[in-house]
């Protein structure tokens, strides 16, 4: 088999398996073929467990025994099938790093902490290029400059611990590109980073792919990212490629039921306010016991008996658009029409008049201690002068990047910590500095859902006792029968089968665990629920189920939500009002629609433009504000406007004075001198 002209990498029928128990193997990748042309950026998209990372690691022969890779991999400039050489062969090693470089998800752990970054870059150059150590150092410093690291001569001799997450990912890119590879694989390379940093890194990769003549494979779960940055897309599900093609064709007319489902399940920034997400029913596939036919069969809305007759091949639907589905586009369209299962609109909201929660000038500082005597040497201003109002039945979204104080704000409202100054009125009572005894009856009325459904539930408690604990602590039920009835009611409310009561958390999937967390928060009939990144740890298809559940619960129970997240699309989808925070301060607040249509603050604009939407055409027409630099540390905040160090429009006044929130009508407020002038 020979490679097509101008193909750089060609993988044919990759099958990767890992032992599960004595007789069975997990087929993580089940016959994946893909190709990469010179100068191309390809996206490999899928949810967790789809096999996307394993595929890219299989191509590089990074799968360690007892894992096993079968298939064929051809690389431009190398003779024959690379897999036959073995992972430790001279040939395989010259491809790894030399022809194909890879950067990984965790920038914090992917660099060796005990070696200088310069050494780690230089190491790659010396392995693959015939240069002296001196030249390698110069090449490394050169590359560090290209990836945007200031003062590279000095930083060459620093250790990874001296770099921020975004900077470490730049070091990784420099390390990979310094050896002049043809291909860069970015495996979830920006997932752990803040939104604006993510945009910076991807733009850097996009630019470098042109200047350094490198093709890129972006491996990600984020459909928006590939819509914006990739040229061609492969969609994976259960170890198979289910659809592939040019991004414009694919986003304009997705054909595989899974791709269609994914696109309907993710919230988009440009959605109309009342669009209801359409979740993909069922659970993500488990790699053991996958059927020999279509892996998506169990969850597919359009399934038919003939789907089970065997694995169907990828078929060309024209224009290099390949789909692995027995049903033709017309058949699916016809079924779609007959089902008419338009999810419709979000249930109607009844927003009350009287505010349930009112926060005024809230301030939270943490002292910094130094030395043996633990002398106080300063304060971290985590939350600085924050005010807002939430009405019954309303959702207030709080967005911001790391260090913006959103989690501290949540802790203050929960009174897990006592704010330094300001007021928190709950139903008119100020709870900001209330004594524990007075607070006790109110505690159960403000509850919280946490980010990580895996670590926020006690692994030894049964689901029943997790959900029932608040009932017992607050003596809300008087008899065993009443308690049981209430538990069943709560389980049904969040869409869990009450017969699962006696199970422990590890017997549930991520989405189900989050449902348990929600049931726990609901147990005491709260008035306010604080949701701290409740869906960010979940797969997109599951995310939609939880968002819909939260929306339903809000309308039936008239709950007020404070919804904290970094994902702007999700926040915009669920919120009525949004609060944008930066370094502890509110920089802008507005009704959700208004904020998206008419952002005022430069940070809001940058944040919005950093989030791609899953429609490449529409995305290209959006105004883009690119930020330089990184979020300053809260220990070292700018003296004027918190955003002044990164703002493209910052003036001397911005650097000296802190702008106050000003009203701009339509419920919109922003803290920016620029907007004041324009008014």
């Amino acid at each position, binding site marked *: 088999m020979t490679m097509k002209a101008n193909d750089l990498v060609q993988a044919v029928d990759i099958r990767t398996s890992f032992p599960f128990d004595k007789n069975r193997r997990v087929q993580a990748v089940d016959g994946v073929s893909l190709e990469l042309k010179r100068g191309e950026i390809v996206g490999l998209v899928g949810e967790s467990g789809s096999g996307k990372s394993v595929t890219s690691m299989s191509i590089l022969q990074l799968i360690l025994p007892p894992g096993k890779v079968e298939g064929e991999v051809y690389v431009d400039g190398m003779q024959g099938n690379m897999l036959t050489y073995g992972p430790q062969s001279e040939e*395989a090693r010259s491809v790894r790093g030399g022809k194909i470089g890879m950067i*990984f998800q965790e920038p914090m752990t*992917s660099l060796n902490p005990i070696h200088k970054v310069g050494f780690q870059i230089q190491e790659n150059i010396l392995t693959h290029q015939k240069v002296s150590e001196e030249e390698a150092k110069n090449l490394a410093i050169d590359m560090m400059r290209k990836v945007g690291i200031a003062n590279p001569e000095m930083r060459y001799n620093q*250790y990874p*611990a001296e770099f921020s997450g975004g900077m470490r990912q730049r070091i990784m890119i420099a390390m990979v590109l310094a050896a002049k590879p043809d291909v860069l694989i970015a495996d979830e390379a920006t997932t752990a980073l803040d939104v604006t940093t993510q945009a910076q890194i991807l733009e850097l990769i996009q630019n470098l792919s042109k200047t350094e003549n490198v093709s890129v494979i972006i491996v990600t779960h984020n459909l928006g990212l590939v819509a914006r940055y990739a040229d061609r897309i492969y969609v994976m599900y259960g170890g198979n490629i289910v659809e592939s093609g040019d991004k414009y064709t694919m986003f304009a007319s997705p054909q595989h039921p899974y791709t269609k489902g994914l696109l309907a399940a993710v919230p988009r920034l440009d959605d109309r306010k009342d669009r209801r997400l359409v979740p993909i029913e069922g659970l993500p596939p488990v790699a053991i016991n996958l059927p020999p036919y279509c892996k998506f069969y169990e969850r597919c809305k359009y399934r038919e008996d003939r789907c089970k007759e065997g694995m169907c091949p990828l078929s060309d639907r024209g224009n290099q658009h390949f789909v692995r589905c027995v049903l033709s586009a017309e058949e699916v369209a016809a079924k779609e029409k007959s089902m008419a299962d338009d999810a419709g609109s979000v249930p109607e909201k009844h927003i009350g008049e009287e505010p349930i929660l009112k926060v005024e000038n809230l301030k939270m500082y943490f002292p910094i201690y130094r030395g043996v005597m633990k002398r106080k040497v300063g304060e971290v201003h985590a939350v600085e002068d924050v005010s807002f109002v939430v009405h019954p039945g309303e959702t207030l979204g709080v967005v911001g990047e790391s260090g913006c104080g959103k989690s501290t704000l949540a802790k203050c409202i929960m009174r897990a910590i006592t704010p330094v100054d300001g007021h928190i009125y709950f139903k008119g009572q100020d709870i900001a500095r209330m004594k524990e005894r007075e607070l006790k009856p109110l505690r159960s009325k403000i509850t919280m859902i946490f980010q990580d459904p895996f670590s926020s539930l006690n692994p030894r408690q049964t689901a029943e006792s997790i959900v029932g604990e608040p009932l017992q602590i607050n003596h809300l039920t008087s008899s065993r029968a009443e308690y049981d009835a209430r538990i069943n009611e709560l389980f049904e409310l969040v869409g869990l089968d009450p017969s699962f009561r006696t199970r422990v958390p590890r017997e549930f999937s991520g989405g189900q665990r989050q449902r348990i967390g929600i049931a726990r928060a609901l147990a005491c009939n709260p008035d306010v629920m604080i949701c701290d990144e409740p869906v960010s740890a979940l797969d997109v298809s599951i995310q939609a189920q939880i968002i819909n559940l939260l929306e339903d619960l809000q309308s039936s129970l008239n709950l007020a939500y404070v919804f904290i997240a970094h994902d702007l699309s999700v926040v915009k989808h669920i919120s009525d009002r949004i609060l944008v925070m930066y370094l502890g301060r509110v920089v802008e607040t507005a009704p959700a629609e208004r904020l998206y249509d008419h952002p005022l603050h430069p940070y809001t604009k940058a944040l919005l433009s950093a989030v791609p939407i899953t429609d490449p055409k529409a995305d290209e027409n959006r105004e883009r504000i690119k930020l330089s630099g990184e979020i300053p540390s809260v220990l070292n905040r700018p003296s004027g406007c918190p955003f002044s160090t990164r703002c493209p429009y910052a003036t001397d006044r911005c650097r000296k004075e802190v702008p106050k929130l000003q009203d701009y009508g339509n419920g919109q407020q922003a803290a920016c001198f620029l907007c004041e002038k324009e008014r």
Partner: protein
Amino acid sequence: MIRYIGKRIAQTVIVMLLVSFITFLLVSVMPKDPVYSLFGSDVTPDEYEVLYKRLGLDQPILVRYGKWLADILRGDLGTSYAYRMPVGEVVGKKIGVTMYMSIVSTLISFPLGMLFGVITAVKRGKWQDNVFTFLANIMGSIPGFVIAIVVLWVFCVQLKWLPSSGFAFPWEDFGTHIRTIIMPMFCLVLGGVAGVTRQTRSSMLEAIRQDYVRTARSKGLKENYIINKHVLRNGLVPIITLIGGRLAMMIGGSVFIENVFSIPGMGALMVNSVNKVDVPVIQVCVLLTAGCISLSYLFTDFLYLAVDPRISLQ
């Protein structure tokens, strides 16, 4: 960096002071009358009064502690009740023996244990791993004195190759040194090697599955190079912690070995002194042991500094 070193030294001094005070306190409440112990039980009540005052026993405990500490710092370690001679002379040679045994056995067992640990980790699941790990588990779980008795029976009683007791420093009589030290050293080293092997194996395996090792592999580096440059140093950081603890254990644990082979070391001395309630000797022994252990912990902390750049960054 210099601040850190200064801080650690200051901490060590504080710990030593605390240990000395607590041992002084504990020993001073022991049910043994120092006057009768020192001068025999035929002291008359009048003489007792005088001697009691001369020893300063009528003064408050803090004052006595201050005096004792000042004496020790001046080099006067007191007089042993049992031997009726200066404590310095009683303890001096014996601590030398024990320190020599502990340090030499640590110096042998660490490199060996680390070597076996690295082999078992790198060859995980292969026969080398199975054999060494199996042996390490067996040897690690048999108490040292059992091995000592078996060894003694085989080489001394049956084969009559080696003497059953005695000790000489190499600079005194090299031949006797080798003959007397082989068996006790073997017993001390065996347990040490087993422990270090197991620890090294697990911390190496931990280091091998770190993300940065995957990064190193993705650069196309050779596997041996990856182990040397990227795994070894990271894997050995936790082993450094062991050195301090191991040294301390050796000093304490040598009691059994010293008894079995009749080596005149600290272990035997301490047991005897406790039996005889030889207060001054016990105090000095405890103080010296605590000193050795504190110093070895200080030493390991400085080793950390050399191996892990993150510590000096903080």
